[in-house]
């Protein structure tokens, strides 16, 4: 269940960038700040992502290396040996990603309540799904010129995560 949520959110976020520009090939960098209530400093990680017609690769490179793959309607995680291990239970959320990728607002509207955020250029998505709503209060999506620049995930216990996207192509050396 947990991995399911993680992967679904990962899928959701990574495809947002894709959705903003319906190009079949897209890549970039991301940085992620996790804020835990009561902790002085956020935990920062960063990595790269590559979206191709067949697959999406989401790779954390700092402070450790960890890779997530979405292909053939399945979600995989690379293990220590570099093998992609399928994550059972995550498949249903791939359909959700498709809806996002294709900007299918009707489908999104069934699963999220979408509204304009107070911040200019941002939208507020409130999950209707029981599982996602257990974890998140809302997603804040901010886009510029059709490209998602920042996503904020607000959790119930005042923790939140901010992910920044940078669409400059990562160099090969940045991938492990």
């Amino acid at each position: 269940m947990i991995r399911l949520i993680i992967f679904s959110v990962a899928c959701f976020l990574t495809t947002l960038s894709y959705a903003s520009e319906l190009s079949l090939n897209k890549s970039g960098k991301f940085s992620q700040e996790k804020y835990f209530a009561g902790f002085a400093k956020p935990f920062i990680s960063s990595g790269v992502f590559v979206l191709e017609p067949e697959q999406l690769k989401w790779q954390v490179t700092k402070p450790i290396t960890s890779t997530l793959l979405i292909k053939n309607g399945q979600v995989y995680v690379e293990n220590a040996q570099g093998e992609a291990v399928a994550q059972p239970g995550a498949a249903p959320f791939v359909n959700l990603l498709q809806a996002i990728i294709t900007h299918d607002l009707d489908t999104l509207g069934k699963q999220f309540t979408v509204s304009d955020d107070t911040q200019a250029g941002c939208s507020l998505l409130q999950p209707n799904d029981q599982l996602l709503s257990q974890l998140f209060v809302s997603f804040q999506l901010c886009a510029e010129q059709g490209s998602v620049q920042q996503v904020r995930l607000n959790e119930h216990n005042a923790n939140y995560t901010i992910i920044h996207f940078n669409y400059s192509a990562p160099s090969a050396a940045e991938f492990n």
Partner: protein
Amino acid sequence: MPITRLYILTIQRPALRNLIKVARWLSAFAWLSGLALLLIAVIVLQKPRIDSDILALMPQSDTRIDSVETHFFAANKQQVMFSITGDNAKQVHDRLNNWLIDNGLPARFNVPKIDTLSQFYAPYAGRLLSEDYRAAIENQHTFSAFYYQKLSQIADPFVSATINLDASLSLASFLTEQMQKLQTFNLEENRLTVSYQDAKYYLLFAQIKDNAFGIEQAQQLSTSIKQQLQQLAVDFPHTKVRYSGALFHTSANASQAKYEMTLFGTLSLVALVAMIVWVFRSGIALWLASLTVMSAILGGAAVLLAVFAQVHILTLVFAVTLIGIAIDYSFHGMLDLSSSEQKGYSRGLKLALFLSLLTTSLGYASLFFSPMLLLAQVGVFVVAGLFSAWLCTLLITRQWQHQLIIAAPILNLADKLNTFLQSLLHLRRYVIIASVGLIAACYLYAPISLNNDVRLLNASPQALITNEAFHLSLLGRDTGQIMIMFADDEQALLEQLTTFKAAVKLRAPDAKLNLLSDLLPSKVMQKRNSALVEEKQKQGVFTVSENITGQPFTASTKTLTLDTLLTSPLAPLITQQVMQGDEFVASWFMVTDVPESVLAEFASADPQLLSYNKVALLSEGLTHYSHSLLITLGCAILLAALLFAWRFKIKCAFKQTAVLMLTIAIILSLCSVLQGSLSIFNLLGSLLVMALSIDYLVFYQINQLSRENIIAISLSAASSMWVFGMLAMSITPAIYSFGLTIMIGLVTIFVLAPLTLAVPKSKENR
């Protein structure tokens, strides 16, 4: 007699006759009313229930198993499951779900709240470690990698929910591992789904209320659900809905049993009425036969309901047989009265009736001690019913003696039968040789074997059985094996479970087991975990978490116990998984991806571990009971031999016993050929044939080949064959076997019984 009194009697004779007539009818109605009132009183006081759960009929096995299976699996009987696949599966799911909710059958599935779970487990952080976490705290480097990986994830609900409670993330890791194990299905937009053989299935589970398990309610609910499914099938023709659950089996079995009971009861009643009217050409004979049968039913039912508060519907189906036996008393009585020149019954008839009641009752009384509830109930019903019929015959029937006359054509028929039976007597050797030849031929064709696989007794529609198997596959249970671990106390149980898991993993590394000890490690294990993390803390393993969160590492000293866990958000799950009895504690779990033989090996090596297979357990129970029925049959033959030797001569007793054995051998051989193998119900039928056979042998020995005796036995055999022949048409395998056995047995004994006579004699002791 004084002259005045004689005068009064003479003057008042017609009035006296009328008075006697009225008294006769009054006594009969008083008798029936008494029995009816007794039955009503028992019903009012006992408030009996009719049950149709086929499993409730099966032999009770080990009491330890019986008590745990009620606790662990009783709720399963109340669950219904639907799987939906096809073009409009989602819509059908939603429509059906709404319908279930509207009809008071809410979905059973609930996702545990992450926050509540985290809060509950927080005080035990550090005492509960996942396998991943144990590996992670090997050293500072491995822990750093683990910690960074956890925090780098976009979202991890357990990290988020517990990091403020346990900065070392041991709790997050523990909860993640446990929840992943518990999560069998996908949750897609609040709908449960599962993928199976490249198709997606939406699942719905609903819990039926307890009171829906009366037969009427089960049938109503089942019908109502099926109607809804039919409507959905019309509205969405490209979507398939499968359903399963005990409810549907109960309903199907009850409908079939009710249908058969009504059909067989009606047909046998019509046949009996026709035969009686044909033989006696009198409404009185019909009335007396009905009176005897009604007495048997009322008396039998009253005692049955007084002894058993819950009666199985199949008991009523088998109870139809009582009509066949009870009416024999009436036939013998009426025929004896019609031919008797003196008032009342002949001595021979009274003796024969008494011996008949004694032997039949003894045979059926043995069923009372049967481990099968059905047999025990049938035994009680028949014994009480026969006693009631016997009393009715002796006390009531005799009062109509003067109105009973045998029709002339029947007497002619009896003479012809007499000639036939006498010719059989002359051909006795050949008949016996032919019988032995038949047995040998049958044996060569299909050697007698007992097959007590309980699945052969399943009368549920094939579609239901297929759905059941399919749903087991969807649940991933088709390859799983249920195991039960027993222990003296909670801690011993948890330690045994831990040891078992480790042993299984050694033999089958891919094995999947969800154990209670995963959610609740034993106190020893918790203490060991605590010591481990404290040691690691001293080694500086947790420095990274302390640096990032700014919170110092602390290990809990509080121990999680079963009682505490039973107050947790997981309590509904735990309660169903563990049972705390007065003498033992037990827990069940499913093991998958381990060969059955390996699990059997573990179970045989550990008396506290049971490989639980309900079908195998029931079949084993039936096998045990079959053996005891075989012994009962042997004892019955011995008892009959002693009775014959006591009442008749040794030579005669030998012949009678030989005929009994031959009859049983023919029954078992022929049934074996016709059915492929024998079941417990063939043995049960044989027991009944034995009782009837002893009756015939006794009556032949006492009343010889008298016309009345031949008519009575022929009538008895014919009526029984009508009644039991009906049962052989049943599609319920158990009833079919029973009916077939008795039909073959009756034909056989009808032919063989007269062979025990030396020469035809006139009525003895007349």
